[in-house]
């Protein structure tokens, strides 16, 4: 078996209190094209590694002043040298010595007397592993940066500032489970004074869902302008377009409604989305549900949606949400669910839209107790305020 080929000059630090060993190891590794440093003690090894981080360290164990175990522990405790692979090279060949070496962070252990070919083979193997790990870390860092940028671009699609509408109080939230989101919302005051409201959820998460979200958001804005008071036709047009333009293996649920703030009248279409709630402040009546008026978008090309309408009275609260709230899991695997959603909303109905939204997100966070967020969360709360009472 031959040693893996070195990809170039690597910087190797050899630590041994025996100058003869240092000479031999230095010569072997220099012949392989590496840049070699050699020191005879633990303190000198630490000073050398701190001055310039080597790519690999060959470390003797039995040395005066400071033994190799302590040197390795100190290297692993220092952020600058933590990731440098350490190979112990020692005459100690008992199992407990080797176990201790790996326990303090060594990647390998070579017993003396060593064979030159073995040392070279192990050194080259660990240098190759280190290079691969570095490449992986670099690629991961690059991907994380790009995802963060994609997340920023996504956020820029969302309305930056909510419209101020007399008699109405609005709040929105988006909490992606990862860097990007498959959920989105839109709250858009049209030129005719009506308010377009949307919450949608791509049935997936991650980068694919984020790209699908961007396409769906753009289509919705375009078709909402084309069919201003016909949400069902907006759904139909989006459905046909995404089936033509994509491979058809992703779907989304969406609730899209047009609210007349002066009358509280809401026309909507619900494409397979969890029915939004209408709740009344100071009233224990059963919450209203804005049921589905058709199936998910992106499934069947000839599908139709119907339109429905509802009246929001003063004191009523409209809550649009995505399943990231219902499916939030605690550490025992239990879901937040509809009951907790409703009870949290009802307990906070007397607050502002912002307060209701915050209370719901806080309840979810408290419930999950730090468990990793499993799905994106989008939330829109619209409160129709009671008219101010005039004194008689």
């Amino acid at each position, binding site marked *: 078996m031959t040693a893996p080929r070195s990809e170039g000059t690597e910087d190797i*630090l050899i630590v041994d209190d*025996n*100058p003869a060993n*240092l000479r031999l190891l*230095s010569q072997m590794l220099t012949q392989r094209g590496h*840049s*070699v*440093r*050699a*020191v*005879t*003690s633990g303190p*000198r*090894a630490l*000073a*050398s590694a701190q*001055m*310039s981080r080597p790519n690999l360290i060959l470390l003797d164990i*039995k040395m005066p002043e400071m033994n190799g175990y302590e040197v390795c522990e100190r290297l692993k405790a220092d952020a600058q040298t933590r990731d440098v692979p350490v190979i112990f090279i020692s*005459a*100690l*060949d008992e199992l407990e010595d080797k176990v201790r070496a790996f326990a303090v962070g060594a990647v390998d252990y070579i*017993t*003396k*007397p060593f064979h030159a070919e073995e040392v070279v083979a192990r050194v080259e193997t660990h240098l190759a592993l280190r290079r691969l790990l570095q490449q992986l870390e670099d690629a991961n860092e690059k991907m994380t940066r790009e995802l963060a940028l994609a997340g920023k671009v996504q956020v820029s699609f969302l309305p930056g500032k909510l419209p101020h509408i007399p008699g109405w109080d609005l709040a929105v939230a988006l909490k992606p489970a990862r860097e990007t989101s498959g959920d989105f919302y839109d709250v858009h005051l049209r030129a005719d004074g009506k308010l377009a409201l949307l919450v949608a959820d791509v049935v997936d998460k991650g980068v694919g869902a984020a790209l699908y979200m961007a396409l769906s958001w753009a289509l919705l804005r375009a078709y909402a302008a084309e069919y201003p008071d016909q949400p069902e036709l907006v759904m139909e047009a989006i459905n046909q377009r995404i089936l033509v333009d994509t491979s058809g293996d992703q779907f989304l649920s969406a609730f899209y409604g047009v609210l007349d703030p002066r009358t509280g009248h809401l026309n909507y279409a619900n494409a397979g989305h969890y029915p939004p709630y209408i709740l009344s402040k100071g009233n224990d009546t059963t919450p209203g549900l804005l049921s589905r008026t058709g199936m998910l978008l992106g499934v069947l090309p000839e599908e139709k949606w119907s339109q429905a309408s509802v009246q929001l009275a003063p004191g009523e609260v409209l809550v649009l949400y995505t399943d990231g709230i219902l499916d939030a899991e605690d550490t025992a695997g239990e879901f937040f669910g509809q009951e907790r959603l409703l009870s949290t909303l009802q307990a906070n109905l007397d607050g502002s839209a912002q307060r209701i939204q915050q209370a719901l997100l806080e309840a979810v966070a408290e419930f999950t107790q730090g468990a990793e967020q499993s799905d994106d969360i989008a939330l829109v709360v619209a409160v129709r305020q009671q008219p101010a009472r005039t004194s008689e």
Partner: protein
Amino acid sequence: MRKPFRDQDLLAALEKHLGARFVYQEEPPAAAPKEGITLPDGRSLAAALGTIPPQWREELHKATTLGNLQEILAVVQRVRERDFALGQALQRLADGFAHDLILKAIEQAGEADDRSPQ
């Protein structure tokens, strides 16, 4: 324990397995006298290093701290052309990996520089 072994490894194994205790007598210091290394012409290593440009001492200090023999020898070569005895002494120390002695002498030369009148 495999051959060749070092004395201290053998003694440590005997201590461990036989419960033996060894009493050691310290050897008198040999190579490094209190006053440091002395060159054949009677100068101390530190004093001789004080005569070379500070930039060279700095380079030698860095190369020695790194343990980079090639870089050490590159500086030593320049020193040898200017001061043969000093160059030879440094070469011997570098070949024997006596980095502590070189670093100590450089630091002493630096301290002497600091004390000398401006």
